[in-house]
């Protein structure tokens, strides 16, 4: 099982990701409502995979990605955001994200994105 942390300031989105992820593959170890909480939970629970919103209070998603990647460069971060411009996607990847899922998304979209993100771990 891979340890998964969900980061989003929306309860609806956190709940959707918790419901929709593949429970045979991922174990949710933490959910965080902003970047500051995410960093604290990351150090506490050591998730291998993180879903990350970008527009959040306190520490935003881009800054949070950089901080998490600095703590553990191996972490796999899937950005789940409504911000659809190319520049933001590139910036997130440069800071340490590994994939991008645009909101709104279906449960199948989420499962496919998480599978693609972690595909190499099956080898």
């Amino acid at each position, binding site marked *: 099982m891979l340890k998964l942390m969900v980061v989003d*300031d*929306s*309860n*609806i*989105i956190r*709940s*959707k990701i918790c*419901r929709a992820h593949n429970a045979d593959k991922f174990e949710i170890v933490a959910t965080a409502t902003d970047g500051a909480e995410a960093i604290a939970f990351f150090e506490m629970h050591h998730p291998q995979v993180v879903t990350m919103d970008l*527009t*959040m*209070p306190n520490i935003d998603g881009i800054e949070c990605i950089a901080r998490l990647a600095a703590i553990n460069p191996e972490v796999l971060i899937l950005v789940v*955001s*409504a*911000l*659809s*411009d190319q*520049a*933001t996607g590139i910036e997130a990847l440069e800071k340490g994200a590994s994939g991008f899922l*645009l*909101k*709104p*998304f*279906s*449960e199948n979209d989420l499962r496919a994105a998480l599978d693609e993100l972690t595909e190499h771990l099956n080898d």
Partner: protein
Amino acid sequence: MTEDKLQIFIDGVVRYFEHTADNDMRVGTPYLASNADPISMDYTGIIGISGNNKGCVYFTAPKIMLKHLMMSLGEPDTSEANMIDLVGEVANTISGNARRELGKDFMISVPVVVSGAPSKIHLPSEMRSYVVPAVWRSYSAAVVICLQA
């Protein structure tokens, strides 16, 4: 605001509701409204816009629509807290998706949600807003765009 820019937000509304189980969304004819009397339903999610454009984009909807929308999204908890969350998330998604065309300098805030009274929505009095009516199932909601180009 140009017709092309307005279309970006109309497309955003349609895209959002395409992801619900009841993909039965109709967008009405957009119109200009005075900021002195902003349209407001039970809950309103407001996104502040800064950067190349200044103003706000908001999504306003009746309680019953939000409750059914949550059920359609598979969310079992239809509490008031989640209704407030959802109206903010819809506004955030529509505004965020607009950056595909408007770019990174279309900067959006985290959502602020107000309930009820239009007096709680402050819009620049010298401007007018575009109202995009949206009917999902039998419920009427609206996306309001108030932007200084």
